[in-house]
């Protein structure tokens, strides 16, 4: 080892000052570049990605339905592939629990499906207000695998659990004046915070003609996939009318009234040009903003399916509308 002081590097190896400064400048610019790019990306994502933000790993904890379940006769069941449970319970239109498709699953915990009562009144011989569990004990539960076609041109296949509406109506005995049935959703802005905003006239109201309501396809669901109905799907009791657009399937029902006159219905009031009282699935009558000729089956990839008249239930229900101009009565 030598004890000479370390040699200075030759002058040729010393970074010239301008270059040294440029490197610092370069590093600074690289940092600013990365920071700005990240900020722009993050900002744009926050602004536009809300529908896609993770589903909050929502796991519905509705329990299995206990008690005997009579398998449906099967005559109305479709054997098309069922839409995955996760999709059925995280892609919902339930404006009372938020406007985006994944809002209802996120806010589902706010809605308490017990205790719950259902009032049955109007043109019936036995009007009454009944506890939901008592009401459910009146019927044996059936499973029905139905197609569900939303007015927004997407569809699902869902195994519902419940009982035919006709069984309930027969039990409360409609009077001879009863011609329509109207249904009302719970009105409670604490449990259904969407009702704090005047997006629609709350509470949500839907209706059917009595013969539609008595049709064996018309179903009251209290469960799906063998489980209690999750709140976002309309717990504890909802309507399912498989040949009509999904918005007819009113959720979280607290009142069923039989009436003489055709009831007002929420979407029909909000946009009479777009949403009719009948709302039968009809590929020939376009929505003003999109065609109803085809639909996207959720979970099925890109190919669109042709939409069928009455959602494929024409054989069962077309006769209900004989002589009715379905272009006018959409």
């Amino acid at each position, binding site marked *: 080892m030598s004890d000479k002081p370390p040699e200075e590097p030759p002058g040729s190896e010393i970074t010239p000052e301008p270059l040294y400064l440029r490197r610092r400048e370069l590093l600074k610019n690289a940092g*600013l*570049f990365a920071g*700005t790019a990240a900020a722009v990306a993050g900002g*744009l994502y926050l602004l536009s990605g809300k529908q896609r933000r993770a*589903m909050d790993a929502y796991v519905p904890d509705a329990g299995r339905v206990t008690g005997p379940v009579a398998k449906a006769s099967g005559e109305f069941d479709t054997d098309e592939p069922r839409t995955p449970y996760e999709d059925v319970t995280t892609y919902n239109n339930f404006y009372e629990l938020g406007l985006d*498709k994944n809002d209802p699953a996120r806010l589902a915990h706010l809605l308490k499906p017990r205790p719950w009562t259902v009032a049955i009144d109007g043109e019936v011989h036995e009007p009454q207000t009944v506890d939901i569990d008592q009401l459910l004990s009146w019927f044996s539960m059936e499973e029905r695998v139905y197609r569900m076609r939303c007015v927004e041109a997407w569809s699902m296949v869902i195994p519902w659990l419940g009982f035919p509406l006709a069984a309930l109506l027969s039990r409360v005995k409609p009077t001879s004046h009863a011609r329509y049935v109207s249904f009302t959703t719970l009105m409670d802005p604490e449990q259904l915070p969407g009702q704090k905003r005047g997006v629609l006239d709350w509470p949500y109201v839907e209706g059917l003609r009595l013969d539609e309501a008595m049709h064996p396809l018309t179903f009251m669901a209290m469960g799906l996939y063998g489980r209690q109905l999750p709140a976002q799907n309309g717990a504890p009791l909802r309507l399912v009318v498989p040949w009509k657009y999904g918005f007819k399937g009113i959720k979280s029902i607290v009142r069923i009234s039989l009436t003489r006159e055709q009831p007002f219905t929420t979407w029909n009031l*909000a946009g009479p040009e777009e949403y009719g009282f009948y709302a039968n699935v009809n590929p020939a009558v376009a929505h003003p903003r999109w065609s109803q000729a085809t639909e996207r089956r959720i979970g099925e990839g890109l190919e669109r399916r042709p939409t069928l008249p009455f959602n494929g239930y024409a054989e069962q229900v077309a006769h209900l509308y004989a002589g009715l101009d379905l272009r006018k009565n959409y």
Partner: protein
Amino acid sequence: MASPPYPWLNPALAVGGLSPLALLAVQGPRGALGPNAVEAALNQTGLLALVLLMASLACTPLKLVSGWTWPVRIRRTLGLLAFTYACAHFLTYLVLDQGLSLNALLEDLVKRPFITVGFTALVLLVPLAVTSTNRWVRRLGFPRWQRLHRLAYVAAALGVVHFVWRVKQDVTEPLIYGAVLAVLFAVRVGEAMRKRRARTASAARNPA
């Protein structure tokens, strides 16, 4: 030659601006966009096209109000990003949503004002994107180029209308964009009036 101030600004904007699109392209095929991936992609690309177009329109008003010059230097990048997202939005609709069915496209264009308006906005952006280069500014001459590029305001207004018609019931969000657009426009009109007054005033002082 001295490099312009903030040389990193435009590249950063381009990379950051394109990353949501890149993320969509990666996540979509992997099924990470939720149960209705096409709808998610349509909503996001459409909204970003509008946001970026309005950001490009905000540059000049921001300069007028703040005196900064950098907003004007990112205007072209913002406009081209907006055009990119508008194209991605249209292609998602045509290819992924409608399965490249030209019949469906024609029917939508003719029968549904909601689609007609959105498509018109896209068509208006095409000449603006084409003439966005310096060479085109020279070729047209700045006053003519500037007049042409006022079409961006028309496209943005049509974009807001398309958005209003898109939502089913709650029009709050599209109306917020409409209000912002109106404010941007008002700043420009105010500036134009101020300039005109200044011109007439100076003309009055110095009669030719």
